[in-house]
């Protein structure tokens, strides 16, 4: 056990924990926008898979990483448009339509991968971007300031999202539509318009989260996300619909995964026990939900479609 607490190991564990939180963070912050406006998008995992494949395939064919990100965002926007159309315009039951989008993304990404790629070839992700000066700090520099641009972007997204939600008129509209769509509508806010915007933004970020996962791992395979998108949805509840809380949850998942990985590599815990450790975040999330429900209130109109005069 002593081995684990050497500073080099600790530093690399935290650093890889941050990296592993990235995909959760994009997806969960995105989902926060949708849920704040009253729409539960349960199809995040499917959208992540499609985004991941889109980015992977683009990079594999020489399109470059930036184009890969654009493709992932575009895929997310298209899926978000479809999701918003069914949830907002057609008022479909969100808990189920989301499962449909998940299965669609799961199947389609696998189908395209098998048909267009076949054997999983590795790709090279974004290079490490050392922040000048900060990266040279002892310990912290290696932990926090020697990552790829994707990691920085994910964490920068948190204050941006918090600012938009809490300090802008748009954020006020989003929150009011999620709390009391009738009142917002009376005041001239387009409930449908706001919800389309948040769901599409969230889906674009989910696509980006998938792309982050694929480029950081440098690979795509069937069901690459392994349920990360579902966890992202739960992280929004976990974080009480606040970007900072959502970040805390994402970090929990990333760090636990990284610690388990590290302990396994060092041979401190037997391989088999790592599965038990991997249960931990899920159990913690359930406990957190029990606590959160007593203290926090979800957006009043969450999962409730709005129809004028209904």
């Amino acid at each position, binding site marked *: 056990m002593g081995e684990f607490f050497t500073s080099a190991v600790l530093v690399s564990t935290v650093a890889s924990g941050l990296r592993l939180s990235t995909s959760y963070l994009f997806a969960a912050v995105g989902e926060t926008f949708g849920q704040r406006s009253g729409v*539960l998008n*349960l199809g995040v995992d*499917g959208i992540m898979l499609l985004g991941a494949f889109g980015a992977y395939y683009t990079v594999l064919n020489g399109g470059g990483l930036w184009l890969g990100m654009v493709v992932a965002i575009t895929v997310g926007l298209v899926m978000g448009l*479809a999701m918003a159309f*069914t949830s907002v315009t*057609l*008022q*479909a*039951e969100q*808990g*189920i*339509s989301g*499962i*449909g*989008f*998940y*299965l*669609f*993304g*799961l*199947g*389609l990404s*696998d*189908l395209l991968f*098998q*048909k267009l790629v076949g054997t999983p070839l590795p790709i090279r992700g974004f290079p490490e971007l050392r922040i000048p000066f900060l990266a040279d700090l002892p310990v912290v520099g290696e932990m926090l300031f020697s990552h790829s641009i994707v990691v920085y972007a994910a964490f920068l997204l948190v204050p941006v999202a918090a600012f938009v939600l809490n300090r802008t008129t748009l954020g006020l509209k989003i929150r009011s539509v999620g709390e009391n769509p009738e009142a917002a509508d009376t005041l001239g806010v387009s409930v449908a318009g706001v919800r389309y915007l948040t769901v599409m933004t969230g889906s674009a970020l989910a696509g980006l989260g998938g792309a982050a996962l694929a480029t950081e791992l440098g690979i795509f395979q*069937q*069901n690459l996300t*392994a*349920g990360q998108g*579902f*966890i992202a*949805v*739960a992280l929004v*509840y976990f974080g009480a619909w606040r970007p900072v809380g959502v970040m805390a949850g994402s970090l929990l998942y990333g760090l636990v995964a990284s610690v388990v990985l590290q302990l396994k590599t060092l041979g401190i815990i*037997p*391989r*088999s*026990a790592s*599965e*038990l450790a*991997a*249960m931990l975040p*899920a*159990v913690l*999330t*359930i406990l957190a*939900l*029990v606590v959160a*429900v*007593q203290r926090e209130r*979800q957006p009043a109109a969450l999962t409730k479609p709005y129809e004028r005069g*209904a």
Partner: protein
Amino acid sequence: MGTLFPVAAVLAALVVGAVMLLLLGASPGEGFAAMIDGAFGGPRELADTVNKAVPLLLVGVGITIAFRANVINIGGEGQIVLGALTATALALALPDWPAVVLLPLGLAAGLVGGAVWGAVPGALKAYFGVNEILSTIMLNIVAVQGMNYLLRGPMIDPAEIESGSRIPQTMRLPPATDLPVLVPDTRLNLGAVIAVVAAVVVYVFLWRTTYGYRIRAVGLNPFASRYAGIDVKRSTVVALTLSGALCGLAGAILVFGSESHRMVTDGSTTGFTGSAGFNGIVAALFGGLHPIGTIPASFLFGALLVGANRLQRVTQVPSALVIALNGLVVVFVVSSAIWKRRLEQRAQLEAVQTGDQAAQTSLPGDVAPAAADPPGRDSGTDDG
């Protein structure tokens, strides 16, 4: 009228499938012919289709109970895994028991395992207000990790350790747990009968017993139900417990009816369940959230899944196509509910116009669980 929407949804999904086949450079005609041949081409194909339909039916019927109580059970995957684990553990613990005792006992163990995994989110929802969608997602993760732990550790086949290959699987279960084959030279086993019986039992339970009536009443209007003296919280727990039990039974059948007669994991839930926990939702929706309607619905989706393998062999289009199409069916079915509501509203308005009192009061309002059929004809004899 209501039954037309799911059919239209499947047709729409098939049209999309045809377009996708074209885009992938395969002939849709050839593709669909291969699927039909692969699913219905002969006794063996039919048997495989039925076997594939069995977990979908059990899960679908379980989902139906939950839906009728207005709870969404997307924990089918985890409940299947739990049921399979408990059934497997029991079979391994009692290797010398005779089939007449061990087989039913093993299936019952599966029921219990799944029931526990359904009861937990039920209780969390009823007594702590935790959203069941989230808790079931988390319990799916716990279940799959538990399966990986047990099959790589305590429950692994000792031979796998000796040979050093360490494939995460149990040893071959006692032959007493092999589900009897019903038709020689096919893989059709007793699981099919069990599933159909379960569907009928659930139908009788939901529509012909007081308890079932309470569950449906809670789903239709929890407030009115509470006013009528129904313990809403308990009904929620019961509904999710029963829902989980049926998924657990599906897990036990998956193991006892498997070709290798052991439980194997590839590390993922889908590797074991074949996504039955999600595809069962598709079947239930298509079956109009009715246990009997779910029987043909699961057969259809079983056929799609089995046919997809032949599709892959003949046209080189990966079978994952069918997973994507299943997703579209779900989206189309839940999206079409709006037109169903509109039709009902229209009928109601017409009734108002003509002053038809009976029609006004007999039509359901907006309280019906989403995508659910109008409530049955039975009146509230239980309310007193």
